[in-house]
């Protein structure tokens, strides 16, 4: 009897520790490969580096931050504007795609989803370079736009903000389609029957039932597009010009070309802070925790 009680107590103890044990590998991984580097990055952001070839020294150099703000404010603003534009464009393109696949896809659902994901099988860089060719002055698109008069004879597509936003939209589109699809697919079509039964024509049913129920997908999708798009430097590098430089390019340049680690680190931390604020405001606005 007492042995059984002891065994039970032991079992309970094990049950209590099991979740923590399961967390250990992930936590160790995160600590070693994320939090420690982040900490070292933070120290770097407060270090000084008098010359290009000097070793950075920690010294509470908050001036790095003020420099990051004052010198690169325009790039920050541009990054978030482009990312916002790309997110909105991706949302407008992805929602109808996800809607059709979820509600009209029938037995072709998986094929259509596959078509959405297929571009992922190609390298990100290659895809962006392909866009360069498509938008380029010898490309097929520019001739068409000149012919139908959308663009003036001297106007080009490549090396414009439009090209950068287009590239960002294209590259991150699947991240918008998939979460929206998942949330739409979960909606019981009988809810639409119910809405129609209760005097709502199709559009009102869409507004009152489908849109609210798909908000979690819209929320997840826009974060998955917005955050990487804001930090991206490949699209602005290959598709833009000197006036479309985004903050990612600045960080890359400071780290790898100028060797100015402290400034690059400070820029990174400012970027993280802004993204966190944006995400907090956004999740408050959409109130997703209530829907999910």
């Amino acid at each position, binding site marked *: 009897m007492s042995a059984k009680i002891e065994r039970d107590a032991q079992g309970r103890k094990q049950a209590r520790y099991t979740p923590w044990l399961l967390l250990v590998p992930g936590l160790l991984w995160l600590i070693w490969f994320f939090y420690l580097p982040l900490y070292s990055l933070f120290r770097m952001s407060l270090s000084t580096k008098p010359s290009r070839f000097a070793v950075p020294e920690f010294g509470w150099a908050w001036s790095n931050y003020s420099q990051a703000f004052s010198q690169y404010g325009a790039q920050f603003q541009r990054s978030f504007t482009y990312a916002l534009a790309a997110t909105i464009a991706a949302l407008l393109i992805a929602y109808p795609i996800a809607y059709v696949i979820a509600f009209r896809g029938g037995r072709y659902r998986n094929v259509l989803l596959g078509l959405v994901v297929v571009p992922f099988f190609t390298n990100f860089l290659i895809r962006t370079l392909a866009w360069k060719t498509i938008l380029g002055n010898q490309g097929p698109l520019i001739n068409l736009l000149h012919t139908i008069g959308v663009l003036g004879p001297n106007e080009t597509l490549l090396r414009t903000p439009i090209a950068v936003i287009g590239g960002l939209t294209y590259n991150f589109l699947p991240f918008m389609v998939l979460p929206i699809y998942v949330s739409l697919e979960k909606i019981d079509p*009988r809810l639409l*029957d*119910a809405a*129609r*039964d*209760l*005097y709502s024509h199709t559009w*009102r049913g869409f507004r009152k039932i489908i849109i609210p*129920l798909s908000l979690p997908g819209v929320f997840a999708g826009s974060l998955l597009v917005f955050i990487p798009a804001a930090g991206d430097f490949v699209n602005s590098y290959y598709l833009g010009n000197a006036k479309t430089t985004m903050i990612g390019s600045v960080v890359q340049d400071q780290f790898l070309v100028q060797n100015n680690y402290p400034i690059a680190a400070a820029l990174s931390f400012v970027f993280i802070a802004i993204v966190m604020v944006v995400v907090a405001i956004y999740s408050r606005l959409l109130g997703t925790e209530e829907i999910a």
Partner: protein
Amino acid sequence: MRLNIEALNDAKELSGLENTVIEISHVSKQFGGFKAVDDANFGIRQGEFFSMLGPSGCGKTTTLRMIAGFEQPTSGEVRLDGKDVSKVPPYKRNVNTVFQNYALFPHMTVFDNIAFGPRSTKAPKGEIAGRVKEMLEIVHLADFAERRPTQLSGGQQQRVALARALVNYPSALLLDEPLGALDLKLRQTMQLELKRIQREVGITFVFVTHDQEEALTMSDRIAVMNAGRVEQIGTPEEIYHQPATVFVAGFIGVANLIPAAVVAVTGDLATVDAAGHRFGVPVTDESIKPADSAVVMVRPERLHISLDRPTGDLAAVEATVEELVFQGPVLRASLRTAAGTELVAHIGPEDALPMLRPGDRLWASWVLDAACLLRSVDTTAETALVS
């Protein structure tokens, strides 16, 4: 027989014509090669509790969906308040549905769910709040207005679905097997609840179910459907005591069906030879003529058993006891006649024969009025039954 039922239905429709809310006028519905509803023709009256009863695939839900507007009839007309609505979309019809799984909007509170219909029709705000509150009280959910559907039990969700439909004061409320998801006890409570609410609001209820007990308990009238056709329409008593077809007799409750040869028909009494005996059976089906083969239907609780041949104006057949099962209120006796027909008798405590054992020979008898004579199912009808 088919003609006869139609005449019966037409007569019923005529009798209630002045206050008919829904008219199903020679409606058929074809899905590809499958005829889901075959020439349904009946009316549903103002304020009645009308059930469509039948096995799955009999066309009852399709008929309901045609009344709601989710399906359009292939031929025939659905008339609502006298107007043909066959091509009118659901959101322009003044009928509302309680769906099988309730289909409550998960992102809205109970209040918003119920207010959905009135808001669609742009009713004044103040009026909406009043109507929703009134409905919440009728369904006994006054304290639950701000809850989400997921925070409610199955029975409570059911009431919300009911309130959400009734708040629109529809010409008729359509209920598609609404109690199917509830456990037995809750289902029985909700049956009485539905009856009470229907009396309170006085709105026509059209109720689809495959559960014959449910239909008998709740309905003013029942349409029994089978393989796309309406077999009989009548009150629960009519359908139970005077089924129009062998299918109806077998689907509602337990029926003893004894093959019989018609000897003579005089007025509304036929003389038949069945199970080796000759006796009289009341007959309502005018198409049954002498020399026809027919079926005598008698309910198990109407059978009396005795060891000696009973005297008096009774029908009686001799049988052997095969099995005796005590079921609480009654003793269920399985009997077999010399001709091989199986009979079931439900024997109450007053009629019990304590010494009875399997293998004993006895007499099963009934007062003539307890039985009725049905046209036997021909082979084509039988295949229809199976499919």
